[in-house]
């Protein structure tokens, strides 16, 4: 079976991609993912905040060491001088991982930056390219809590980041986004105009939880589940024939069927971390075998021939298409549960 796929202009041996996550923290981890059979590996995300936090932490630590020094005759310090070596910053560590991991595997390694502002990303993106990243995924996770910020401002912020990064590097850039834009299709097209080589749909918005015992908000991260695939799949289907760039699907992959569903909707590649975390790195083999079996069973000769079969046709009115689906769904629900819409 021919599973070959092109993503961001990169030829891949198959459309399954390990998305940014905890399995790609080390060279061995990345190698394990590639050995498991995936078509490409997106490295874990380096967070803008992480880089900044580390600098601030170093400063706080310096203060903590000094704060209580030399104030009492019996204790002129409270910590040993451990090392005179500068602390290895997370950024340096990340670059070194890109360099080593890209040499260790025979599939493309995609670096991932997570942030919400321009910051020093431009400079760092160039360093990632030099270190050997095949492409760059910009994960723009932005929650506009500032009520004075209008919708267009939010979009412009994304566009500016993409444009600035694209101007400075020559490797392809994919943008991982949240779905919460008033006209996502138009916005996605503007990103393409700004230079994006692909979009990754969607970023999961990690809503925090509440600890009632401590009366505190607690950040919560949970693995995705298949029902979460519906939102991205809907948008992939709607945009497949309207966006002239690569589309990657992410969230909610658990079985080979989930992979197939995404491909039918029109995804160029399907990403997963949750399934690999749950079942181990080698689980990609199970997913790929399942895909292979399905294609064979259905009589397809390649993954390309099945891709986008269920996308909204290029000539259809996409809004009307969706609305029709919506109405049908409600009718179905009514017959099962009674009227849901008043």
């Amino acid at each position: 079976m021919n599973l070959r796929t092109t993503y961001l202009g990169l030829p891949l041996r198959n459309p399954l991609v390990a998305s940014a996550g905890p399995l790609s923290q080390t060279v061995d981890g990345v190698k394990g993912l590639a050995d498991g059979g995936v078509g490409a590996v997106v490295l874990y995300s380096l967070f803008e905040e992480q880089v900044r936090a580390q600098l601030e932490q170093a400063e706080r630590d310096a203060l903590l060491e000094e704060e209580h020094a030399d104030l009492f005759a019996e204790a002129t310090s409270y910590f040993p001088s451990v090392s005179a070596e500068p602390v290895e910053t997370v950024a340096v560590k990340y670059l070194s991982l890109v360099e080593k991991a890209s040499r260790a595997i025979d599939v493309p390694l995609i670096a991932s930056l997570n942030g919400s502002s321009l910051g020093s990303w431009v400079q760092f993106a160039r360093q990632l390219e030099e270190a050997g990243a095949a492409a760059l995924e910009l994960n723009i996770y932005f929650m506009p809590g500032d009520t004075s910020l209008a919708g267009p401002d939010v979009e412009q912020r994304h566009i500016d980041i993409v444009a600035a990064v694209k101007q400075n590097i020559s490797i392809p850039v994919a943008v991982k986004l949240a779905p919460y834009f008033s006209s996502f299709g138009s916005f996605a097209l503007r990103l393409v105009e700004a230079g994006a080589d692909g979009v990754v749909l969607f970023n999961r918005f990690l809503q925090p939880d509440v600890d009632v015992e401590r009366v505190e908000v607690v950040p919560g991260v949970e693995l995705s589940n298949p029902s979460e695939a519906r939102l991205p799949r809907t948008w992939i289907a709607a945009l497949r024939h309207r966006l002239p760039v690569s589309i990657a699907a992410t969230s909610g992959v658990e079985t080979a069927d989930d992979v197939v569903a995404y491909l039918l909707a029109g995804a160029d590649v399907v990403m997963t971390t949750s399934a690999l975390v749950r079942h181990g790195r080698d689980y990609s083999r199970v997913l790929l075998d399942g895909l292979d079996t399905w294609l064979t069973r259905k009589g397809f000769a390649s993954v390309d021939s099945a891709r986008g079969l269920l996308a909204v046709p290029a000539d259809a009115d996409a809004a009307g298409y969706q609305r029709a689906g919506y109405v049908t769904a409600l009718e179905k629900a009514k017959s099962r549960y009674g009227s849901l819409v008043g």
Partner: protein
Amino acid sequence: MRTIIDGNEAAASAAYRLNELCSIYPITPSSTMAELADEWSAQGRPNVYGMIPTVVEMQSEGGAAGALHGALQGGALSTTFTASQGLLLMIPNMYKIAGELTSTVFHVAARSLAAQGLSIYGDHQDVMAVRQTGFALLCSASPQEAHDLAAISQLATLTSRIPFVHFFDGFRTSHEVNVVDLLSDDQLRDLVPEELIRAHRRRALSPEHPYIRGTAQNPDTYFQSRETVNPFYAAVPGLVTEAMEKFAELTGRRYELVEYHGDPEAERVVVVMGSGAQTVVKTVDYLNAQGAKVGVVQLRLYRPFPVEQILAAIPATARVVAVLDRTKEPGSGGEPLFLDVTAALGEAAATGRRAMPLVVGGRYGLSSKEFTPGMVAGIFDELALPQPRPRFTIGINDDVTHTSLPYDPTLDIEDPATVSAVFYGLGSDGTVGANKNTIKIIGEVPGTYAQGYFVYDSKKSGSRTVSHLRFGPKPIEAPYLINSASFIACHAWSVLERVDVLEFARPGTVLLINTPYPIDEVFARLPEPMQAKIIDLGIELWAIDANLVARKAGMGRRTNTVLQTCFFAISKVLPAEQAIKQVKKAIRKTYARKGADVVAKNEAAVDASLADLHRIEVPAAPVGDQPMIPPVIGAASQFVSTVTASMLAGTGDQLPVSALPVDGTYPSGTTKYEKRNISDIIAEWDPEACIQCGNCAFVCPHAVLRAKYYAGSALDGAPECFQSAPLNAAGFPGSRYTLQVYAEDCTGCGLCVEACPVKPIGGGNRRAINLAPVLERTKEKENVAFFETIPVNRRSRVDFANVRGTQFLEPLFEFSGACSGCGETPYLKLLTQLFGGRATVANATGCSSIYGGNLPTTPWSSNKYGRGPAWSNSLFEDNAEFGLGLRLAADLHTETARRRLAELRPELGDATVDAILGAPQQYESELSQQRARVDALKALLDTMGGGPRVDDLRSVADHLLRRSVWIVGGDGWAYDIGSAGVDHVLASGRDVNILVMDTEVYSNTGGQASKSTPLGAVAKFASGGKMTGKKDVAMQAVSYGNVYVARVAMGADPQQTLKAFREAEAYDGPSLILAYSHCIAHGIDMRKGLDQQYRAVASGHWPLMRYNPVLRMSGRNPFLLDSPRPRIPLKEYHDKELRFRMLANSDPEAAERFLEFGQDAVNRRWAEYEEMATRGAERFAADATRSDR
């Protein structure tokens, strides 16, 4: 290599490089030597023979000596570093090591011994207590000598086979920073060649050529055997001389066993040993230049006593010789050095070898008491009298036995080319650190010498520091404080309001003040006496708002860089431009590893400082009449207002002998007079939002939050700003509630804010108690004064069973000088609230004995009836045993009282006797009834006209009320040095309560690892991360079956803490409470201390549990698991603490590995605990003494 270090580092540098093993235990002031050895070893630094020395921390100095003895018998070159009682703990081994003619050197920063009181400071009491062990004693007088003689003693011990104590004065030498020429590895290797080491190894035990050593001997041969070593001792002076000669060949620095300095035909001679020798030498030069004929004999080798060299050194012309001892031997004919010198001279005179001079003995410098040129001159003046006092003291005013000599304290013999600078700071502002840095900067300039010495007060929060710095073109040999300064800086305004910072000023002194006030107001804001002195002496006044400059530069409260820059700008000790360049260079060196941001901020602060530094115009006459703030506030006893006040004001040196208690007994409850006002932000109560839960008062480490409820009418006459709210409790209509902040005592630690469960809607981060800038101080004082007129709530009307109730109990541990936000003191405070009126407390040496009992004041206080905890500190190692003794005595007295009471039944009547003898005494209501009965009994006895039985009963009647015996201390005591004692006392079955305030590290001595330190935490002596897990002391105690055990953390569950304290105390048998105590040594933001306690519990690192034998007696499972299953990973707890982060930075792989093992241990232990919590009672041991199986 020329470098600038203190005496400890100088000695350790040679000792480490010449040994294979360092067997260590922390004790001030020697800890630094051991810490450095550990750091060097962790960094992989080899000794001069190419191998990396092993450093092993033991559980006590006794243990360190034992391990050392073994290592020596095994043939390793071994050393140790110690002081004071630590050296005394080594004595048994010292006899063995010497008896077996084993080569080793102990490096000792000589320190006072705990007698009427403990002192961490320097004198020769410890080394004099080992002069009889058979060790040779070699004494250094300066940081340079500490380095050189460390090496010389190593050579001498290997050539002579006699073990050495190499000592130098604690603090004065160990902590003095000075220029030191370090020996290279090659020089050290040439000095101590490997052949000597091989000879040492050949003497080791080996099964290849077995023999036995350490036999038991009988009357037939022990005596003769003891005499076999005489030739070895006789050879020592010669061998040390040879070592010194070889050293001189290698380095050009020449030492002698005994050195004479002064007029060759001196009539008056002083004999002295240690740093004081430098002072005498300089004064002798000064006096001889004035035409005197005086001299000084400096001893370096004290044991074996070099009789011939002493005789040769004291000029034949000497008419009178004063021998100075830095020690005290009560009851002796004279101090040891005096007796030795007298015997040597007497023998020589008796055999006609020389004429006998008059020899007198003097004591000086105990506990680092200053020893100055003025005192030396005073001694020589005395020696000029026809009949000088045969025994004397110098440096104090002994108005009881009149031993002290008069002297002129103003005598100044310093080289005018020396720049002398004195800096007053607060411990937290970085003044001392910056000054150490300044010394390095200046000392690195070729042809310049620098010296620094730092004086601290006895508080751990808001402490005052005074730095004495000297710079000059000649080596600085002045081991005493500056008494005339060309530059003075006061880095904290609060200091100059309380202390005369111009004590050392002279005409034209340059004065730098860090001011919170606008520049044009600075002068007028100064206390009037200070203004007058500035005018009279023509002082050049400069000021800067360093806090503002630091804040603007993003450096928070750290003003050190700013003020250091100002010093360089106006002191002219170096050309300003060169100095600024050097300051920046030092910043880059210090902060490089902390990142570019930190470096940039500090550099920016340097530039900003110069712009904001201003010369202040001094008017012709003082402005206003602002007085100094008195040291004691409020009405106090005569003793407190004179003696304590003098100590607080920093004039304790002037107190005469008669002013001080003869047996070390001091009044309780004296911190309340200090009103230190150390924080600009303090707690502020919001009566509207408050739910009166008591959590804030519960956790307040300084007991500055006090709650009372009272009838509304009590508010008549309250100050306008006095806060009050309706009491939030059923059954008290019309009652009011006040939570009073003792504003002048609050340290602004913020734990109360963290503990407050109220988050008013829309209040942001606000709680019902918040931190706010200090209001007008007078209003705060009025409020507190009014609050104190409201009676403390009656104990019988307070529900002890919940946290809410405890806020109404009066704390009898208050306003301690512990670190702001201390994690230990809330537990002690709770102890006193619950049991203080009938408690005796045995306190192990450590943080708690320091904030609890370091003069001038104590936080242990009493209630309005004059009752409160009776507190004592015996030693570090024996606290559990000491506390058991208190229990045994109480039990004996109770027994006597009960017996006498029964005997007096006819006189006292059945009702009285039966009521007292049969009274239950578990609950507070029962105890208060018993207290009333005992009071009535005592009154009755007083009317009975005496007689042996009545008098006997009267003397012990108080013991008819159950006494609460508490044994408290830290983990260094309970897990390490006192571990065996704790274990034994728990096994005694007696009714004692042991409270371990577990900071998981030796906090008081600066953060050395204990067996409580968790796996992977970085601490001193574990700089590569602690390799072993924390000991589960709770389970050790549980294994006895009849010990009440609790593990508590009030930041996680205050209610469980309260329950455990009450159950432990009520239990008629041994109890052990392990209390998690967050600490500055964890490297946390202390405001988040309670959050960290929560994380410790939530991660399973510190599972809350109780083991209550009472439950077992009634057939129930005694093991209660009080915290929920771990709900956060261990990493989440670790990540918040620098002690764990340090390893993650320096060795991420090791950190990760330790974390995995740590998490495994947490999981495993939790599973075990869960299993235990669900067992049947029959699977736990029963107490054979009081229950069935």
